[in-house]
């Protein structure tokens, strides 16, 4: 049987990954749904901001019921996999790619991968750099897969600051970081389909900073930051960001943000980057734990 050599049934793995893609594209994680509902309670009855959130709420329900994409921009495919011995990288890649092709065919994913030089759409979401994989070999027994779909509108609203930044008076300290994050919200208004979520990395280099900023979006919205300083900053940005009155879709209102997640990396003394990965309300992430027998023991983010 194909795939047996490596210890995992390739067909079962592929089916599980297709189901993962389907759920990611058509259902929002429960923590994000909760945050949308909190926003609804916050917005004034009859306001335009509340109306936007009501349409968003209806859309979340409808996409799940119809098993169709939440948003037509199914975005770039980001995949993190913790690979135990029984699942080599090559096996995983093959299975994931087959699942992506199938998902594109049946419409869970839009044809969204364009050759940057020729402008030709690959038609199946595969091509240099896509999907974007992050593999980690692990000692444990379970395969852990997490994925995220990030659309163009919100990705275009992501931004990286190099401190000091005189325009906003941001120095190389946490106050400087705060200024960057509030500025990022001003810049993103009306662009990234708010209310949004900020994934932030303080430090690192230009590449690792953005990767860490995106990666921190895998943390659940209501999960407290282990670092008390960053937890305080997250809360402060939530409060101040929502006070900017940008509101859902930029219509004005008290819900500009659904969450802020901040992480940090060491930097070289000469650099101080603040990388902000802006995520839209259609915050599609999901994941599962799978045993060597092919059974999914747990879906992440469905509590």
């Amino acid at each position, binding site marked *: 049987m194909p795939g047996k050599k490596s210890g995992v049934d390739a067909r079962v793995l592929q089916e599980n990954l297709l189901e993962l893609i389907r759920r990611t594209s058509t259902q929002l994680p429960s923590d994000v749904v909760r945050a949308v509902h909190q926003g609804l309670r916050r917005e004034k009855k009859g306001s335009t901001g509340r109306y936007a959130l009501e349409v968003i709420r209806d*859309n979340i329900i409808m996409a799940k019921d119809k098993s169709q*994409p939440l948003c037509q921009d199914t975005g770039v495919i980001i995949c993190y996999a913790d690979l135990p011995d029984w699942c080599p990288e090559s096996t995983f890649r093959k299975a994931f790619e087959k699942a992506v092709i199938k998902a594109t065919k049946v419409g869970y994913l839009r044809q969204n991968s364009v050759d940057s030089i020729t402008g030709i759409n690959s038609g199946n979401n595969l091509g240099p750099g896509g999907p974007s994989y992050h593999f980690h070999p692990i000692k444990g027994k379970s395969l852990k897969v997490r994925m995220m779909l990030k659309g163009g509108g919100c990705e275009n609203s992501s931004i990286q600051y190099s401190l000091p930044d005189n325009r906003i008076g941001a120095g190389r300290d946490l106050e400087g970081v705060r200024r960057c994050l509030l500025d990022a919200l001003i810049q993103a208004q009306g662009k990234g389909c708010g209310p949004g979520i900020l994934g932030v990395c303080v430090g690192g280099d230009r590449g690792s900073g953005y990767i860490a900023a995106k990666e921190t979006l895998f943390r659940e919205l209501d999960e407290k930051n282990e670092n008390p300083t960053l937890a305080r900053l997250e809360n402060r940005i939530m409060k101040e960001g929502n006070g900017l009155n940008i509101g859902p*879709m930029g219509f004005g209102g008290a819900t500009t943000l659904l969450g802020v997640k901040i992480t940090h990396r060491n930097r070289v003394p000469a650099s101080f980057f603040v990388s902000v990965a802006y995520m839209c309300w259609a915050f599609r992430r999901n994941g599962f734990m799978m045993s060597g027998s092919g059974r999914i023991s747990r879906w992440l983010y469905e509590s």
Partner: protein
Amino acid sequence: MLLEAPFTEKKIRALRVGDRVEITGLIYTGRDAVHKYLHDGGKPPVDLTDSIIYHCGPVVVKEKGKWVVKAAGPTTSIREEPYQGPLMEQFGIRAVIGKGGMGPKTLKYCKKVGAVYFHAIGGAAQVLAERVVEVEGVHLAEKFGAPEAIWEFRVEKFPVVVTMDSHGKSLHEQVLKDSTRRFEKLLG
């Protein structure tokens, strides 16, 4: 409030920023390729007098010989800023639907010719697709590809918000001004 075809100047001039509108009638999709084509002198394949243009690259599939809309959310409008106003004037376009709003040039033309900007809820692909009750035709699909084509959508109660009106008001301008003032205050 309900807005039914024909989309006359009188009906459009009566709309104000903040109005929630449900559109019923025929609308046309058009995004980057179409705007550039018309701007460069291309002939419109449909009569655009008193029309509504939807900035949208839909997912449409053929099922049993009929076009069915699978997803139809708005795309970012500001990319059409250089073209939109002059095209409104030249062809009698009464409104555009999109997301993110447009700039001062379009706002000026809205006032001049009697047109508005409708904001649809970004990302709400399913809610919006459901209000497209029929696809009545498609134009320029061979030339530009399906997402960039002009699709004739018969919509029923298609939900939008007026964010730029024909009286010189823009919600986007207001929110930007207000949020920037608050931002500057926070920065001290």
